[in-house]
């Protein structure tokens, strides 16, 4: 099919129809498992937040109101994940020659930043309450935090059960774990402390740090970077979808876990205070939770920052020098210069290379050999520049 005009490649939905756009978005959200899960969980969270808000307004409890605000804040994290998962599936166009796949990494990164911010806030709130212990009212907040805990557990179940791409960067396998833990629940029992303070009081960091996956037994569809050649298209589609949501899901999962631990911590500290009158339990819980959240976010942040900074992919790091050696041993090759390998999105690597060859060398052969060497490692887009050495 020949293009009818130069502009034919820019087929875009009619801009004037907002409804059309919205329906398009909804359709694309529902098409993919990850975004569908995120969307439904977001709706669940929002409704819970609204219920809590209305209950708080009706009963005039400032604690409940501020807790519901905190839930809304968490919903924005879910929203960011959802937006990232939708955007990353858009087709590439003139302005985005690689497509929008980086959106997933940015989504995970932004989620991580929000979590750090949350942890910082909880910590400062804890410090503030430790210095000036306020009156803490628990009667209305305990059932709310229990309900929030349940919502969170639903989220954990949904997202851990849902998508999975596993990747252990250190093993160099090319497995990507998508930890989607939609931070469900915010069941924070909001301790009424002084003034309108931020609502992250009962956040609990979760000790999730080392990607301890319990229920990841039956995951198929792992991307093995050993021998890509023979993959069927369907298999690759699965890999692609799973792999590409890894960052988002990890961020969302961390968020849900943080909320879950928050609820648990609130319940624990409430019990401690009611039964043993340990007023100090509340701020200590908050600070502990904040530290846990901060610590658990670090792997996600490190990975996203590495990708965004165009860092050499950790899974390729060890194998690359050996590849350079092999290229240099090709007949006619003098030198390998300026290698740049970076990650476009999860499991997709791009590389550029300059090879200095003798003037009489067989450029074609060198090119195809070089391509073979690097394709075996999983670099999908390779640009090899041939420079003839001056004699």
């Amino acid at each position, binding site marked *: *099919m020949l*293009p009818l005009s130069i502009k*034919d*490649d820019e087929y875009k*939905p009619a801009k004037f129809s907002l409804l059309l*756009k919205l329906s*398009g978005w909804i359709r694309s959200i529902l*098409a993919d498992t990850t975004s569908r899960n995120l969307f439904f969980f977001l709706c669940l969270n929002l409704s819970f937040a609204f219920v809590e808000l209305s209950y708080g307004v009706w009963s005039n409890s*400032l604690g409940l109101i*501020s807790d519901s*605000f905190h839930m809304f*804040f968490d919903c924005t994290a879910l929203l960011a994940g959802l937006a990232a998962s939708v955007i990353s*599936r*858009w*087709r590439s*166009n003139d302005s*985005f*020659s*690689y497509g929008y*796949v980086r959106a997933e990494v*940015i989504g995970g*990164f932004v989620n991580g*930043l929000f979590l750090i*911010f949350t942890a910082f*806030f909880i910590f400062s709130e804890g410090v503030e309450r430790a210095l000036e212990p*306020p*009156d803490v*009212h628990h009667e209305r907040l305990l059932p709310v935090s229990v309900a929030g805990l349940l919502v969170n557990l639903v989220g954990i179940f949904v997202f851990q059960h849902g998508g999975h791409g596993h990747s252990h960067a250190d093993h160099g396998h090319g497995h990507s774990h998508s930890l989607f833990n939609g931070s469900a629940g915010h069941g924070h029992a909001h301790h009424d*402390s002084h*003034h*309108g*303070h*931020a*609502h992250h009081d009962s956040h609990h960091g979760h000790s999730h740090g080392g990607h301890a996956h319990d229920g990841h037994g039956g995951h198929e569809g792992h991307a093995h970077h050993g021998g890509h050649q023979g*993959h069927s*298209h369907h298999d*690759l589609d699965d890999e*692609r979808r799973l*792999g590409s949501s890894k960052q988002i899901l990890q961020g969302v999962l961390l968020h849900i876990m943080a909320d879950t631990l928050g609820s648990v911590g609130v319940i624990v500290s409430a019990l401690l205070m009611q039964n043993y009158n340990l007023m100090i339990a509340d701020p200590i819980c908050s600070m502990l939770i904040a530290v846990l959240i901060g610590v658990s976010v670090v792997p996600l942040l490190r990975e996203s920052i590495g990708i*965004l*900074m165009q860092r*050499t992919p950790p899974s390729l*790091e060890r194998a690359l020098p050996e590849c350079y050696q092999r290229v240099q041993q090709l007949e006619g090759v003098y*030198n390998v210069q*300026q290698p*740049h390998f*970076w990650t476009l*999105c999860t499991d*997709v690597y791009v590389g*550029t290379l300059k090879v200095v060859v003798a003037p009489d060398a067989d*450029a*074609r052969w060198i*090119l195809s050999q070089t*391509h073979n060497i690097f394709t075996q490692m999983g670099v*999908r*887009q390779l*640009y090899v*520049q041939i420079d*003839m*050495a001056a004699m």
Partner: protein
Amino acid sequence: MACAPNRVRLMCMLSLTFAFFIVEVVVSRITASLSMLSDSFHMLSDVIALIVALVAVRFAEKTQATDKNTFGWIRAEVMGALVNAVFLTALCCTIVLEAIERFTEAREIERPQVLAGVGLAGLLVNLLGLCLFHGHAGGGHGHSHGGKKGKGAKSHRAGNGTPGETNNLVGNHSSSTDACQTDVSPKESSEVQINGGAQYEDVDNEHNTSSQLNMRGVFLHVLGDALGSVIVVINALIFIFVWQPCNKDELCVNPCIDSHATDHYHGNHTLLDLRGSPTAASAKMAGPCWVLYLDPTLCLIMVCILLYTTYPLLKESALILLQTVPKQINIHRLNERLLNLDGVLAIHELHVWQLAGSRIIATAHIKCHDPTSYMEVAKRIKDFFHNEGIHATTIQPEFVTFSSESQDSLCELSCRTQCAPKLCCGAGDKKAAGDLRAIGESPEPAAVFLVQPQVIVTSEVESSL
């Protein structure tokens, strides 16, 4: 080196700003003023921006490629800008929530004189910062901070001037650091006779545009700071002159503060006591209630201004991180002009993206007849890219094989069939490759087709930009 004074100034401003941030937080706790609190947050974000700028200056100077970071640390400034923008947005959300809470439960400001004093001090520090960075506005810092959210603390302001300037790192820093040190790649390329050595000639243009961007960013930032401090001072003054507080020793009622919503109470606790008291009618009433709502209202206005000025920064850094084609480059035209060069049969996989600031990187597969003609074509291609302002290019040559005379547009190195299904964004490439076979000999339609392979595929996913 010309960059050292930058660093000294940044350090100065950073310590000053941080000190004022601490002061403001303490004062906001003492006076229970929301605008002061938001001002202190704004100052904190300024501190972060300054730290980011410092890190960017430090790291950008070492552009040596390491094994892990082959591009050096240049992206750090873009990341810093993104972090700062996200942080500001989160702060804005927090302030909004606190303001809403203040609306439901109004609170008095205590010791408004302290508030006014600290605010004025902040304004002075801001002006000082502005003077300090005035001469270096082009030196690589533009901060599109803008709009502080009703910072109560004037001391804020001082800090805001400087950090503001450090923010539009994206455009500015790379240009300044380019001037500061020589780039690594020209040295490498001169060692071997490489077709088309790269020279960094037209960095000057970049300097001008980015310094203009910087100035504008700085101006916006300072304006926002000024606005924030002014609002805080206004708030404090109105409170001083209009509000009639309840003194502790006299009998008075504060009608603005509801008793049911408070668990912790600053002001007078006499409301409940007086409710049933017979002397209630003769008790003095505390000052006009609308004064108490002025604080959160002004904060909301400041939040809006802040968000409005932060949005461009956020968008710009996010776009760069998404590997977008830089705005000033028209891929269509680039493609056409490349095809018009002698010896170029076809172009595949053309990608142009921005590393940071003025560093643009391009990669492409160029199809030519044979290796000997490639030598000349390569130099011409490199020069062409240099004229466009793209100095780091990697061109992979593809040579025509005997059997595929009529299939100019297919990638010679089975990259298409092998790589296409594995591209995370290019499931459409496979189908497009099939379509390409139907193209005739002339390269022109092939080129047009090249840029739209993915779009031929029908899918429910639309790119709605």
